């Protein structure tokens, strides 16, 4: 008998504008010891499944289900008794899931006191050992600490410890690693894998990240707009997807092992209206294989909800053509920055504190029409660097030359016209009180490029450039989706016809399918207009798709830099190696021995002097790494690595990509 048996789960929420059907007839089974991945993008309803299982849906939620069983017991009555005892939960954001006013130790011990009847001291002792099992080395210290004193990775380990305290048979995980850096994510995934192995705990993993699901789960359920569209064994489904949506998702995924030459295939269109579920296939409007018959109700047959699944199996998913005339990057430097430094938080009134060096003596160079991808995790200073380069933030020291001319701290209007920025968050990058027309017109008038009727034509041209209809001119930001707002942000940046664009995590806040579209757009624009980009991202897979050259940044300095293909292949800087090894890639059969894992995370402070990565480096050589600044080694055409490890050893490294 399955441990978890869901049949025909439907969920709707009452809202001011009518009932929203978040889940429609969802069924899945998890055997004892099995791991099921529940995959979908935002709006798929996947998080609601977790809350529904636990009986923690709020007011106004109407749940119907043929079966909702855990070990034969009906969860609709039993959930309250089973929570924390036989079913454990790990939520997405560990900072929010932990009570800021209680110690970690107590929060882990609480279910033990509640369900196992342990006395307080006994429970705390057990909690401490549990934290140790989760890989926390200084467990006693952590148990006495409060959440705000811990890093993200530590907090999530504590949350997992809490979930496992009473040794539940089923673990529900809702986007457990989304809020974490990729190297920390890899550690947590290792932990989860180990737990599954050692304790035989069953898992329901909810995530939008197919790579993670591939690593941890045996089986896969794909949700689209509240409906199950495909179900089956994980490896098989991901290598040969049958439903068009699954195929679309996989085609839209940026993969670090494919690089620039592979084109991403976005899924056009948007989510259907959940207030009025279509009787037929809800993916039809966006499906390239749609036919008339798709409008009839589609049952789930043999794990896929598509009547054409077998027919279209052989047909490739359409990938958009590359645009015309690819303008090749010119070798001459457009932007040259030397020795940029910027600290924050330094100096107090009474005792001068040394600030944190967000950017420490960084030099970089970008050619005309070239894309330099800047990769790093949280706190490495990449966003700060992006702003320093545009003189949006004052540098403590350093020099910037643009097109041969020095750019002073108070940049000229001419520089501003030619160097622009695209932001990460589509919700805050547009003025909510301005229409698209006003937002796009302003740069034109500001720089004296056009006005009046000429400006109107220019605005229309810009909209066309970002593939939005001209009718969008009168729209306000709240009337547009995230992807559309992001395109307007790009259009605004391009309005003054710049030569250089800083893209600060420009696609990070978007769903995978939308991300693919915007990424393609940026690539096309670069090809057509010859604009140079400083493309900043924490996701090396995304960067691999667009960058000509890549620079890897760690705690304020660039540790490796070179042509994209060269950086993604050995020789590597140890950090790059760890980064590539950590990225969960779909279809990768990563062998445990080849995985490189970093200890701790970015917040563990380095010592003074020496290599800033030494204290976490798996290839640390000894004292020399802690005391001497690493020399810069050159490999091939402008491929530079700053490391003490001798060049020959670096060149002999195996490929770190988990393929």
């Amino acid at each position, binding site marked *: 008998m399955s441990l978890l048996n869901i049949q025909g789960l439907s969920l709707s929420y009452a809202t001011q504008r009518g009932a929203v059907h978040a889940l429609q007839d969802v069924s899945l089974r998890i055997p004892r010891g099995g791991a099921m991945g529940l995959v979908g993008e935002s709006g798929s309803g996947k998080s609601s499944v977790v809350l529904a299982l*636990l009986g923690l849906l709020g007011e106004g939620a109407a749940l119907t289900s043929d079966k909702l069983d855990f070990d034969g017991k009906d969860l609709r009555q039993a959930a309250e008794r089973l*929570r924390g005892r036989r079913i454990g939960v790990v*939520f997405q954001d560990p900072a929010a899931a932990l009570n*800021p006013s*209680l110690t970690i130790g107590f929060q882990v011990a609480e279910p033990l006191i509640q*369900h196992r009847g342990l006395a307080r001291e006994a429970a705390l002792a057990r909690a401490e050992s549990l934290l140790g099992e989760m890989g*926390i080395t200084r467990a006693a210290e952590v148990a006495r*600490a409060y959440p705000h*004193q811990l890093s993200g990775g530590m907090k999530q380990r504590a949350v997992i410890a*809490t979930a496992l305290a009473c040794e539940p048979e089923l673990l529900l995980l809702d986007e457990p690693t989304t809020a974490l850096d990729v190297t920390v994510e890899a550690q947590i995934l290792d932990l989860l894998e180990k737990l599954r192995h050692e304790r035989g705990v069953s898992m329901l993993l909810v995530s939008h990240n197919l790579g993670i699901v591939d690593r941890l789960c045996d089986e896969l359920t794909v949700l689209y707009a509240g409906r199950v569209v495909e179900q089956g064994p994980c490896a098989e489904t991901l290598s040969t997807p049958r439903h068009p949506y699954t195929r679309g998702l996989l085609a839209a995924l940026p993969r670090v092992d494919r690089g620039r030459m592979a084109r991403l295939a976005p899924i056009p269109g948007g989510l259907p209206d959940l207030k009025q579920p279509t009787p037929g296939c809800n993916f039809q409007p966006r499906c390239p294989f749609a036919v008339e018959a798709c409008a009839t109700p589609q049952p789930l047959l043999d794990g896929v909800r598509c009547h054409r699944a077998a027919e279209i199996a052989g047909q490739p998913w359409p990938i958009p053509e590359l645009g015309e005339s690819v303008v090749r990057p010119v070798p001459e430097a457009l932007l040259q920055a030397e020795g940029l430094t910027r600290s924050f938080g330094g100096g107090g009134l009474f005792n001068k504190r040394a600030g944190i060096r967000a950017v420490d003596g960084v030099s970089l160079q970008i050619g005309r029409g070239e894309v330099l991808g800047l990769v790093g995790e949280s706190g490495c200073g990449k966003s700060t660097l992006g702003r320093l380069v545009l003189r949006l933030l004052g540098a403590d020291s350093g020099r910037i030359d643009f097109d041969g001319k020095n750019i002073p701290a108070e940049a000229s209007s001419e520089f501003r016209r030619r160097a622009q920025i695209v932001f990460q968050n589509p919700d805050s990058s547009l003025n909510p009180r301005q229409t698209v027309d006003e937002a796009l017109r302003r740069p034109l008038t500001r720089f004296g490029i056009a006005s009046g009727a000429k400006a109107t034509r220019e605005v229309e041209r810009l909209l066309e450039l970002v593939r939005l209809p001209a009718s969008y001119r009168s729209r306000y930001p709240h009337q547009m989706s995230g992807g559309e707002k992001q395109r307007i942000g790009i259009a605004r940046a391009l309005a003054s016809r710049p030569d250089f664009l800083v893209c600060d995590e420009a696609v990070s806040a978007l769903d995978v399918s939308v991300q693919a579209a915007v990424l393609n757009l940026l690539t096309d624009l670069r090809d057509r207009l010859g604009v140079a980009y400083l493309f900043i991202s924490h996701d090396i897979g995304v960067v691999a798709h667009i960058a000509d050259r890549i620079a890897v940044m760690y705690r304020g300095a660039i540790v490796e830099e070179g042509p994209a293909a060269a950086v993604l292949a050995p020789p590597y800087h140890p950090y790059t190696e760890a980064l590539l090894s950590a990225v969960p890639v779909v279809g990768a059969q990563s062998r445990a021995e080849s995985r490189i894992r970093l200890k701790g995370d970015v917040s563990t402070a380095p010592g003074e002097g020496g290599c800033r990565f030494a204290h976490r480096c798996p290839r640390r050589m000894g004292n020399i790494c802690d005391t001497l600044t690493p020399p810069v080694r050159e490999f091939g055409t402008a491929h530079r690595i700053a490391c003490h490890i001798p060049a020959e050893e670096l060149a002999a490294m195996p490929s770190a990509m988990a393929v």
Partner: protein
Amino acid sequence: MTSFLARRFASVIFVLWAMTVLVFAIVHVLPGSVAHMILGEFATTDAIAALEERLGLNQPLYVQYWTWFTGLLRGDFGMSLTMERPAGPVILEALGRSAILASISIVLVAILGIGLGIHSATHVGTWSDRGLTLMQYFFIAVPEFFWCILVIIFFAVWLGWLPATGYAPLHEAGFWRWAQHLILPVSTLVLGLIAHVSRLVRSSMLEAIESRYVLAARAKGIPERIVLRRHALPNALLPAITVLAVDVGILIGGIVVVESVFAFPGLGRMLIYAIDNQDIPLMMGGMIVITAIYALANLAADILYAVLNPRIRVSGSAG
């Protein structure tokens, strides 16, 4: 935490000093000489000169300030002009009586305000919650002094249950009579504040109840009432401390009015008396004392908040 507290303490000292300057400046720098104010329009120049000599008003301003300020530090508030006695003891006596009103009020506001707020938040949408919200609207809209009038009309005049004015010291008149004189003033003081505090506690409690960590606690299988008590409540009460501190300020304002209406011989009434009768030393002394109390109340609240909030109490990282 120590640096935070040190800064707050320094801030309190600064505020008190600045208040002395402010009070002094406003009283002495505004048009019309002080002596003129005291003696009135028809005073002869001789009389004015004599008074100025007597009060030391013909000396340069900074000297006058310094004399007064150093006097304050010694505890000498100067001589009351109207009562022919040192101002200090008068102020202290009045302070003692106002303190009774204030402390009873604050305790009531804290208990009832927080209690009603929590009840409201845990019974959202029920009649008691809606009733409370309605009453809150109502109480906030009624001015304090009008409450006093209403309450006097109702309880003192029509029902005759309670005395309308005055005060009977505890040791003289016995407990019941002493309490009787306090009931009306205290009730008018607390009504508006209870409405205010309960409203805030309600929304802060609701915020805690709807938080992620409460959801996570429920997901651990912790029973609801323990979740509310152990997880939601402590986090909801932290903002309440700050609010109570601000309310002390409003309470002070209320006390001035209430004492005036009920002829309660406290600090507020003394202040009004001093203003009406141009008793400068009493006026300045009273204002300084009231400001000091308010500043100390805020400091106490800040200290309490810092002690109870782990994010301020414990800093640095662990593990």
